[in-house]
């Protein structure tokens, strides 16, 4: 290798001096995704202040997000189960970077919440708040804080965040 490695680096100076030629584009891509039988009912539940899970009667496991078929035994042997609105922090991060890579001072605290009543203890991605970021730990007990009933839209953000119990 190593002979004539190609690739031309563009410097910041070249941008500052307006020497770079670009064209702009936006995909203008809009979607209306059908939420289906599983997630659709889960989101409806959030609107009512409930968290739904499903139990696979073959595999004997209760999971959330709920699903109308079990991906492991591949059956529709599913029973719906309402779960508690409390849980445990499975893992978390204190994130100082926005999705557009800008920096933020107060971190977003993302976490995987194991929702009480699932087996094995599993859950979904969400946010923590009303907590000192330095005090968050794996294993912390938390509860869901829902939006006011009239503000809920049947969306994952109907849960504003989770806070320590």
């Amino acid at each position: 290798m190593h002979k004539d490695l190609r690739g031309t680096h563009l410097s910041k100076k070249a941008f500052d001096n307006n020497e770079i030629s670009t064209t702009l584009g936006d995909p203008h891509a809009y979607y209306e995704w059908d939420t289906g039988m599983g997630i659709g009912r889960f989101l409806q539940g959030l609107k009512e202040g409930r968290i739904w899970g499903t139990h696979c009667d073959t595999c004997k496991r209760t999971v959330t997000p709920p699903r109308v078929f079990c991906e492991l035994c591949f059956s529709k042997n599913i029973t719906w189960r309402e779960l508690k609105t409390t849980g445990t922090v499975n893992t978390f991060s204190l994130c100082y970077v926005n999705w557009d890579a800008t920096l933020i001072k107060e971190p977003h605290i993302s976490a995987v919440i194991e929702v009480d009543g699932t087996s094995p203890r599993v859950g979904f991605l969400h946010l923590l708040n009303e907590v000192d970021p330095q005090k968050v730990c794996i294993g912390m007990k938390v509860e869901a804080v829902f939006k006011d009933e009239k503000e809920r839209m049947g969306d994952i953000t109907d849960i504003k965040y989770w806070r320590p119990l």
Partner: protein
Amino acid sequence: MSKVGIVSAGMTKFIRRAQETPKELAFEAAKAALDAAGMTLDDIDCVIHGTAPEAFDGIHMKGEYLSDASGGWNKPYIRCYVGGGTGVFAPIHGWLHIASGMFETALVVCEEKMSSCQPHPQGAFLTIFDNLIERPLKPNLLWIFAMEMNRYMNTYGISVRDIAHVSVKNKANALLHPAAQLGAEVTVDDVVNSPIMAWPVHRLMVSPPSDGACAVVLASEKKAKKITNKPVWIKGVGWNLDTSYWTNRDLAYPEYVEKAARMAYDMAGIREPRKEINIVEPYDPFAYKELHHLEGLLLADRGKAPELAIQGISARTGNMPVCPSGGLLGVGNPIAAAGLMKVCELFWQLREEAGARQVPGLPKTGLAQAWGDLMQVGTVIVVGRD
């Protein structure tokens, strides 16, 4: 199954923002690989392209757009993808084109131009999350990897400092790689004192967004021996995809990487990977991932991989060199091209053509691995000199 060899490799520099268009990058890599083999497109039976998301380059049907630049004109041409695992999957896809008996030669090209995505490629990563229940939370990529790293550290009692050794090693290795974007002499203190991006991930533990392309030429046994007297043979391939419900898995251990590795080891007839693999290029977009993957690849006990870097075993001159290229942390991370860069590195190392980076002791067998999607896919290739 017919034996398949790698007969040449080529790559562009990995850079933060390239003047070249995606097509021009793909072309440069493809041409470099063809030239290195003394071949032209007339000698190529089929072309395989690998890129990860379309969103980076900002082109729908990106594989189609890149087909001519990758040498695919009027030839059998397919773009394959498994997220970040694509770079090692693409040569596997090439392998199956030849091992099936349908073709004698294949050109495999991987390209990614992440700088097209503005204001930052992180924006494109938003769309890898679940459309119904994750994207409304406006997640970014650092979240999930930071959470996986946290789970890994917490499960085995590993510290940020332990993991920092990987950044030190890989960035130093990259100083000797002429295509590298981020080769640097840094200390463990530099790494743990670098800004926290998403705790526990520090800036010097993250690979950069990059522009770049890589290519390899594959050939059947008969052809390979005609093209070069030193083909590097593909001994085993494996790939595995775990459930999309990543929040339902234990993130401390990558079972899917183990399954991919076992598939490749079985094919290669490798029973004791720690003794039989001489050189490893595991996927290291984040420092902890090198360790996580070494465990999944059965090359370290669970929770014990940090020792390899700390004790120098994984250094270029150690007993099991890991990422002698400099990895994604040092060379750069144009997603699919980064994975194929690892296969290129093994090709050069096993042919003793890696120059200043050459691993001592005539390595015979190497392994490259890539990973991606929602912390979900493992792709593994085992290559050897005989």
